[in-house]
């Protein structure tokens, strides 16, 4: 009796109230984004707001062929490799860090708070610091050195926090069983731990790639004379007042959606196979 009331077999008003907030939030989240995707497909007469004037790919052509931005292709040719490097390093370093943090070691407390500090420190302050540091030691700032490090200071805390959550549900008995069966440490890692953690590692990779690809404040003073995509977008917001900036938004968000889709699809596929193989054994 009491239970049926509590587990909300009949939907009470809180369900509808919170459901309404949820739906409103999702509309709030996606509505504006959808607006600029629509506006980016306007005809040549199009302006910055509705109503749409015609439908064409004019503003994409303007963006890519006419060079409405300074150097979009150049920025992409830096942003994408950078995001891939940051992604790979974030996965490796977070995995190693997550393994280590399962037990307390001297300095683990300090290191943990350093991770949190790296996460909440204002990005631009770090950007200034890294830029000044490179100048003081006589190095040139560059996307594959200073900006790479600056972005890792942003992606690693996320990677590590996700790893903590994953290891919270990971039982050490798998490793013990593997060891009892005669596997050495590398074999245990590669054949047991990594396959079990793979979905979580893909999630970390997703964060690594997208957070790097969209990083702005930490990259601004550290990327040297050559821009990354978010900095191109930023400079466009300062001086471009045509829908080609929306076209850039559609383009770069499209790329993000591809990455998100591939990652989430891979995770879903792995989970499904696992469920399948468990069911198949019975």
């Amino acid at each position, binding site marked *: 009796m009491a239970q049926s009331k509590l587990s909300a077999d009949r939907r009470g008003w809180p369900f509808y109230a919170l459901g309404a907030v949820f739906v409103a939030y999702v509309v709030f989240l*996606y509505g504006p984004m959808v607006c600029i995707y629509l506006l980016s497909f306007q005809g040549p007469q199009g302006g910055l707001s509705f109503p749409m004037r015609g439908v064409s790919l004019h503003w994409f052509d303007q963006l890519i062929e006419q060079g409405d931005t300074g150097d979009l292709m150049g920025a992409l040719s830096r942003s994408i490799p950078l995001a891939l490097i940051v992604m790979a390093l974030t996965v490796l370093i977070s995995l190693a*860090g997550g393994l280590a943090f399962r*037990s307390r070691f001297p300095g683990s407390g300090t290191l943990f708070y350093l991770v949190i500090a790296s996460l909440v420190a*204002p990005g*631009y302050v770090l950007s200034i610091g890294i830029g000044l540091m490179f100048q003081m030691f006589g190095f040139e700032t560059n996307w594959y050195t200073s900006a790479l490090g600056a972005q890792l200071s942003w992606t690693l805390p996320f990677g590590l926090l996700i790893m903590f959550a994953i290891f919270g549900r990971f039982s050490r008995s798998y490793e013990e069983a593997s060891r009892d069966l005669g596997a050495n*440490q590398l074999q245990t890692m590669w054949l047991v731990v990594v396959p079990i953690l793979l979905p979580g590692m893909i999630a970390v990779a997703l964060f690594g790639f*997208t957070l790097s690809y969209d990083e702005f404040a930490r990259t601004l003073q550290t990327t040297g004379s050559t821009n990354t995509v978010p900095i191109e977008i930023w400079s466009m917001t300062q001086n471009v007042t045509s829908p080609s900036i929306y076209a850039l938004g559609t383009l770069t968000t499209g790329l993000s959606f591809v990455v998100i889709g591939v990652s989430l699809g891979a995770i879903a596929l792995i989970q499904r196979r696992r469920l399948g193989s468990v069911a198949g054994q019975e």
Partner: protein
Amino acid sequence: MAATVRKPGLSPIMSARLKSFALVLPLALVLLVFVVVPLAVVLAVSVFRYDNFEVIPAFTFENYQSVLSSHLTLSLYLTMLKLAAMTWICTLLIGYSVAAFLVFHVRSRLVAIGLFLLCTVPFWTSNVIRMISWLPLLGKQGVINQALMASGLIQEPLQFLLFSDFSVVVSYVHLFTIFMIVPIFNAMSRIDRSLFEAAHDAGAARWQTVLWVVLPLTKSGIVLGSIFVVTLVMGDFYVVKVMSGGTDASVVSAMYDDISTLLFPHAAASAAVLMIILTAMVAAILRLVDVRKELVSGR
């Protein structure tokens, strides 16, 4: 077999520690080189004279004096604190409701995960683009004004929608609510449902259960989310600049203007002041809950 092979003379605890050290070494190095040293450099530049990219070790408080004695600094901080407070309230209310809906009211776990991802996807796309996507909605000719005029609710377009505190807070809420949802979602997911039955059996009404069971158990999530939102707003660079129409500056965008005019020591002193204020705010919030226990052990 392999498990029992150990280097002679190394106790199991020592070898386990060495392994831990080896595993965290890359992480520690990155944080040392790209967080600790840069912040130390900022502090150094803020108290030394600085000429032609070289720190001249002549100690001075001039930079701090000029930052702290300026009326601009005070008004910047007051503006940012006001914006942070408004954003915090909105993100907390929305984030708590969304998390509660997903955890307590969606029955299928799979659907809950799907809806949770729906909230997360925009976080993985460009923040600058998400911010400017408000321009066609909030403008004088924007969607909201057009709709309100067409419906006859207003005769004149509402001016306060764009390039105002309103549009700045809307953008912050749009960008940062996810930082509130995730930790609260996490905390709520860990609540043992039998506690609700216990509360009910003990005669608690629904609001009492929420107030005395759910709220205390989600305190850690609220604290973490609040730290993220407050620090993100205080460290914001571009939202205030763009969404206020270029008239207002944030603490950080003022630093950017300093850097553009090569006033490095002034920017460094301003950065140091911001770091000290943020550290104090976070430390005050952290007194409420042991974050490490919440995050590392996972329960």
